[in-house]
């Protein structure tokens, strides 16, 4: 309470000189924005500009800004108080999407390494005919989603409006005209909040790696729109896209957590650095909650501020901090000896499961595993992305906001979600992966058709399909899909790995000599690339080492089995024929 009061006094001092705006002469019954921007303190003009002293509509509205939260205005208006945030947001990937463009250029063989650009900001001034293929692809298919997109362009479209600056995320109720009474327009002002509902995030995060869908147990399907209900296709995402239900993330099923319950203010809005990739921007990691480190909250003004603004999560002296950027998790608190987690949207309290210190988490053999490698139950995988480019076609450009020359069509081979392939991810830890992206292009120019280029890549990410129950031992140690070999028959005969893949890429018309779902060969040859420097599929030594363990797993298929306490010694004992089973097995 004290903090809120201090905050209000602070605000009042800044705006103390403001006389009440004359705007209310006409806009008398406008509904409040939130608890923190009362009209009595801020008036209207401090956010919207215009001439607050005028009584005439035309004069009053001169130089007024309808949406001050668009980033080109925000510095002038929101920036009076939130300058730091606006500077950070300006550099974030959600604003200019540079990460997407940079990877695309690399994947389209236009740059040899990933080079940081300014994304959308760079492309604004390049005429269409001067754009490279990757840039044109980006403008036509990717650039619809960024927080400063112009909301008006979504009129009469089946897509959810996106963009608008700060309000893209922070608006929880839209603006509405409630009618005109006595010549006075009654407005429902957009309600702003830091309790951002997940549906705001989902406006954009439903494509590409589809985290926003997967978390809620939705898998973008093959497009059948089944089951049919009332004679109609069901389970629609948007135009031509459908889903079916799979097990949702445990954080959703057990506690209905929203995106913001994990993702921090700094992780989402940026830390002021111009990061190359999303994973560098993200702040949170599993261990930050499940093996939390606490700090005195008084060291972070931010923690107090955030819980004050949230209103449902009360302030605590000891809060958890993220390991990556050392920012406070104000909703994970230590009160006495008790560790309590609060849901941000309503302040509901949850006990948090501490990561167990059992053998499977402690073992040296599994230290390279990211939590997601075992705990992700499925991953949306889209094989074969066939990009068709019609040079003389026309398509809407999401940056220039008009149809320009060049049209893209996307075709695909098939979808899967079972047994995510494992590989060394961007953080050099072992993570689930899926195709991202396997590009084959066909370029049409007048009536000539050309062979385009192809570029097959995988990507590692946290699929947000976490389950408490991890994958079984054999699901990783002897499953060709998990090893990155692709679907097929895997066997081992006298220490030799044999593998018969199923998919015949060349016969299926692909320009590649390996199965489409093979990231590596059993000899560790890397068939497909990654768009991150450190990421790669398993090498020969790793494949062999992983499969080797399966020999023991056949009988010893639980982690509490004593042979895993000291696996090295156990193995030695086995080969020295000092164990009960070794005599029988090795003598044969």
């Amino acid at each position, binding site marked *: 309470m004290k903090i809120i009061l201090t905050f209000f006094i602070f605000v009042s001092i800044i705006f103390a000189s403001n006389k009440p705006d004359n705007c209310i002469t006409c806009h008398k019954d406008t509904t409040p924005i939130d608890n923190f921007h009362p009209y009595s303190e801020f008036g209207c003009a401090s956010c919207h500009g215009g001439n607050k002293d005028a009584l005439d509509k035309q004069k009053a509205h001169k130089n007024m800004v309808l949406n001050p939260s668009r980033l080109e205005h925000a510095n002038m208006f929101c920036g009076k108080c939130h300058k730091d945030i606006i500077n950070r947001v300006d550099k974030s990937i959600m604003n200019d999407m540079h990460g997407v463009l940079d990877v695309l250029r690399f994947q389209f063989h236009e740059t040899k390494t990933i080079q940081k650009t300014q994304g959308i900001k760079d492309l604004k001034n390049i005429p269409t005919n001067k754009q490279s293929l990757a840039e044109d692809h980006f403008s036509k298919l990717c650039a619809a989603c960024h927080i400063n997109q112009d909301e008006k362009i979504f009129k009469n479209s089946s897509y959810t409006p996106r963009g608008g600056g700060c309000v893209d995320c922070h608006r929880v109720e839209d603006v509405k005209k409630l009618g005109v009474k006595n010549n006075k327009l009654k407005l429902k002002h957009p309600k702003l909040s830091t309790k951002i509902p997940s549906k705001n995030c989902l406006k954009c995060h439903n494509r590409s790696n589809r985290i926003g869908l997967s978390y809620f147990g939705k898998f973008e399907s093959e497009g059948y*729109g089944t*089951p049919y209900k009332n004679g109609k296709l069901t389970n629609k995402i948007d135009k031509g896209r459908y889903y079916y239900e799979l097990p949702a993330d445990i954080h959703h099923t057990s506690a209905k957590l929203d995106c913001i319950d994990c993702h921090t203010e700094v992780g989402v809005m940026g830390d002021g650095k111009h990061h190359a990739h999303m994973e560098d921007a993200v702040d949170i990691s599993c261990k930050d909650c499940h093996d939390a480190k606490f700090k005195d909250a008084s060291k972070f003004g931010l923690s107090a501020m955030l819980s004050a603004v949230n209103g449902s999560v009360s302030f605590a002296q000891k809060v958890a901090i993220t390991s990556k950027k050392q920012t406070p998790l104000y909703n994970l608190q230590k009160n006495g000896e008790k560790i309590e987690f609060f849901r941000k949207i309503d302040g509901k309290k949850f006990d948090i499961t501490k990561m167990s210190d059992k053998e499977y988490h402690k073992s040296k053999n599994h230290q390279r595993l990211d939590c997601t490698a075992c705990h992700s139950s499925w991953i949306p995988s889209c094989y074969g992305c066939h990009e068709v480019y019609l040079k003389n076609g026309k398509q809407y450009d999401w940056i220039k906001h008009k149809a320009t020359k060049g049209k893209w069509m996307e075709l695909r081979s098939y979808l899967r979600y079972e047994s995510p392939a494992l590989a060394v991810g961007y953080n050099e830890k072992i993570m689930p992966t899926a195709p991202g992206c396997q590009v084959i292009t066909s370029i049409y120019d007048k009536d000539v058709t050309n062979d385009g280029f192809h570029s097959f890549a995988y990507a590692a990410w946290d699929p947000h399909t976490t389950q408490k129950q991890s994958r079984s031992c054999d699901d990783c140690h002897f499953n060709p899909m998990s090893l990155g070999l692709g679907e097929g028959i895997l066997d081992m005969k006298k220490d030799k790995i*044999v593998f018969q893949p199923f998919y015949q890429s060349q016969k299926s018309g692909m320009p590649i000599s390996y199965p489409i779902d093979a990231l590596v060969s059993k000899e560790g040859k890397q068939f497909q690339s990654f768009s991150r420097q450190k990421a790669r599929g398993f090498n020969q030594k790793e494949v062999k080492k992983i499969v080797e363990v399966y020999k023991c797993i056949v009988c010893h298929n639980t982690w509490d089995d004593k042979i895993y306490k000291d696996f090295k010694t156990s193995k030695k004992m086995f080969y020295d024929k000092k164990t009960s089973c070794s005599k029988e097995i*090795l003598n044969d």
Partner: protein
Amino acid sequence: MIKVLFLLIPLFLFGNECIKCHPNKMEQCKKSNHFTLKNSINITRKVWGIKNSDVTLQTLPQSKLKIQSLKDLVDDFLRRKCLKCHLTSKTINKTDNLCLACHNSHTNKYDAKKAIPTQAKCLKCHNNNFIGTDYLGLFPHDFDKAYRSPITKDGKYPPRPYGIDFHHLNADIHYELGMSCIDCHKNNKNKKWEENISCKSCHKNLSQQNHKEYHNKLSCNACHSAWSISSYELNVLRDDTPNYKQWSRLKVQEDKYLEKFLKKALKSKQQIKPIMLDWIDEKLKDGIWYSGYRFRRWENFFLVNSDDGKIKIAQPRFQYRISYKNKDGKMILDDVYKQNGSKIEAFLPKEPHTITKQSKSCQMCHENKIMFDKNLIYKGMLKGKVLKGSPLTKEQLDKMQSNRYKLERAKSLF
């Protein structure tokens, strides 16, 4: 030229010309499942709730005009959605001669070889989901127009035999070696052609090492087939109203008639009446049958006991979800997938024709996540009835994960 015409005349004019030399064949043919399609018809009717169904293509009742239940609808479904392929169908055999559906014509005993059914003839029907195209390594694409891929080198959509886009998986080793259907499925006077064939009739000397006693009950195919086609949840809808717009991305439903119809209906400014062919009497009748799956897979399988005493691979195929919308737009049946408390589904023991030299590895069955219901994603999905067989018993499943298995498996690995 004149000679050729002269030779062809009898075939086109007199459908029974063949009988002159092969007097018994027609009788034999008329008893065969190829002619009566008894199996497919009665299985479907049974799954949809008709008890003791025993009809043939020739005695299958006409579609009912008033439909109130699944039983009323099933014959219409069969006539207009399933039974596209039969020996007397105009799409399969353009002549009046029944024999020519499978055989090519020949004129005397010296060119009799010409009449041997070619693989292409068999595949005219056996081209989807069941046995047939799997022998060639083909697996159907999904329906949505995004799956018309990849574009060929000359910039065209990929070729679509039988109206279906295909993935190429590894083909059957017998196909790779140049054998066609008829090399195994030979004619034998004493037996029905279906019962005619077994692996052992050719592969007489099996190595003892891998063919141990405890695997005696397995069909060869259970281990030696690489992959099989599983279709999860076949959703079917008969819509008697002109509601085409929602199918604009789903025009290809492995049915050339429907594809052509939808193309026309979606383009036309006038409203086109929803009519579809009855494949048996070849008349156009009210309503369109649409279909779609939940998903299809080639990598999953599970084992069941077959009535012939063997353990075989089961294919999920008949997991129906059924809807019917009548002319007035009323839903008579709306996504019905249960009947008398149990799901409208059944699994059939099958022998996928996807033999590879390398047989399945032990854990693919013994630690099969679907069979042991351990896979979170497929949990409980495949618990349906088994037709012409029964699910593996608890005893059998326990045996598969017994210590004996573990020991034998470990021995094979070290």
